[in-house]
């Protein structure tokens, strides 16, 4: 479980998050939704200790992110931020291999190599393994970044807009993989998603943010209702159902 208690955050004097208290349940796929600028990335970055906590307390599986050594946290959660630019010039396989760093600290063993290979395979990257990151498409690079987080093999995986740049088939296969991590692997996953129907189709738990506050949380069926979504996005939205799950129609 990730517990967020009384977290407020300001950047350059401007308040971004206001006293957020919520939990992300263990063993579930949680989707963070909300309009642009709602504070989803900021909240995820605070959980992933990419940003220092200004106020409040966050624990991930019992580890306080403000006080737990960062290398310990790297074996509990993997976080992939929204900006994924990598400074050095790497081949895809090298990038993915860095996901094993928290476990081997620079001395990879055979099981690390096996994990890297599995991660490359899971994201259909084996043919591109020797290409440089700046010589592949945006979606392929995005998959390599996700594969790195995947190779980290942690109980928690936090992904900020992982569907960016992915085509429909890769987006779907990513969601299916995440679902598998949760259902078969017993892991917990949190993602920020923009395309609301991915949350509707795959998420167990949904947290809706707006203006730096939590405005709704609960199961997908509870949160993804016409009234809630119309208010959240300030635009009329219709919600139907398809195979027992909500289906959001935004072209009505």
């Amino acid at each position, binding site marked *: 479980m990730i517990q967020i208690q009384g977290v407020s955050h300001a950047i350059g004097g401007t308040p971004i998050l206001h006293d957020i208290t919520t939990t992300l349940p263990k063993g579930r796929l949680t989707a963070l939704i909300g309009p642009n600028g709602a504070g989803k990335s900021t909240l995820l970055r605070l959980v*992933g*200790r*990419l940003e220092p906590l200004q106020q409040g307390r966050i624990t991930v599986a019992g580890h306080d992110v403000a006080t737990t*050594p*960062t*290398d*310990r*946290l*790297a*074996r509990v959660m*993997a*976080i*992939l*931020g929204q*900006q994924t*630019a*990598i*400074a*050095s*010039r*790497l081949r895809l396989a*090298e990038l993915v291999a*860095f*996901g094993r*760093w*928290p476990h081997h*600290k*620079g*001395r990879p063993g055979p099981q690390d190599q096996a994990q890297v290979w599995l991660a490359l395979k899971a994201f259909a990257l084996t043919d591109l393994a020797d290409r440089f990151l700046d010589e592949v498409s945006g979606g392929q690079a995005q998959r390599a970044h996700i594969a*790195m*987080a995947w190779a*980290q093999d942690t109980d928690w995986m936090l992904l900020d807009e992982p569907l960016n740049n992915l085509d429909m088939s890769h987006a779907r296969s990513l969601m299916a993989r995440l679902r598998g991590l949760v259902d078969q692997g017993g892991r917990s996953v949190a993602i920020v998603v923009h395309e609301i129907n991915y949350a509707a189709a795959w998420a167990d738990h949904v947290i809706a943010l707006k203006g730096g506050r939590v405005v709704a949380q609960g199961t997908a069926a509870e949160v993804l209702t016409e009234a809630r979504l119309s208010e959240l996005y300030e635009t009329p939205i219709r919600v139907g159902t398809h195979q027992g799950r909500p289906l959001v129609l935004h072209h009505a």
Partner: protein
Amino acid sequence: MLGAMALLLAGLSAVWMLQGIGGGNRGFILGLRGTKLAALVTVATAIGVATILFQTVASNRVLTPSIMGFDALYVLLQTGLVVVLGGAGLAGLPPGPKFLSEIAVMTVLASLLFGTLLLRGARDVPRMILTGVILGVLFRSLSGFLGRILDPNEFAVVQSVSFASFNRVDATLLPWAAAITAAAVLAAWRLSARLDVLALGRDPAVSLGLAHRGMVLGVLGLVAVLVSVSTALVGPVPFFGLIVAGLAHGLMRSARHAALLPAAALSAAILLVGGQWLFERQLGQAATLSVVVEFAGGLFFLYLLLKGRIR
């Protein structure tokens, strides 16, 4: 590749040491040449490793510690010392301990200053370059100002560190410089796996569990040590590191520091020893090497900027 480079360096060194050696005074000539060779190799290693380290913390390939004003800071420190202690007082201090304490002060200052700068806005490369250039100008003009209030004899002491020359090497400093360089390079080498993670950039490095802040400050400290050594021995050479780092990246085609660090040190040593041999022995123009190196380095810097290769 590294093996071939090491062989080339060994060959060059042999030629440097033994070329045209006659009967008389053999021991004396060998000693003289050996000192110079050791100085060149020390300086080359320091500059090569410092540049790679700095480019890794700064996440870009156009900056060198010198462009950012590290060596100007060292010169300023020297000038400040002359002002406070006087030229004679300075000359009276034992060279080894004096050098060590200068390096210690330099390391603290540089880590604080550049640490603050890098931990704040490292993403913004143009701003970084601008800040560095301005810092460099600031340090240089402060040294210049202090130089003006010194009397000419004392100013001569300062001047020797303010201009680059591969000919004038302070032999008393050399053993200290070599030992310090070796220690710093060993430390960098042992960090090489962590440097690989640092090179990914802040966010990925933090999410992989690297203690980012400590690492940045530590690496900047190493850079400060190495720059102090090279500046003390030959003066500021802003663009040489750029050529060397460019060569190391080009030759290794790998982002692993276990390969980049030795490659940078070796290519720097080959260029300096080879260049000095060419200019001193073949062309009889010992003084021009630093000028040529800087000219070529400056052109390379412009090329990198124009090609937009600023990451």
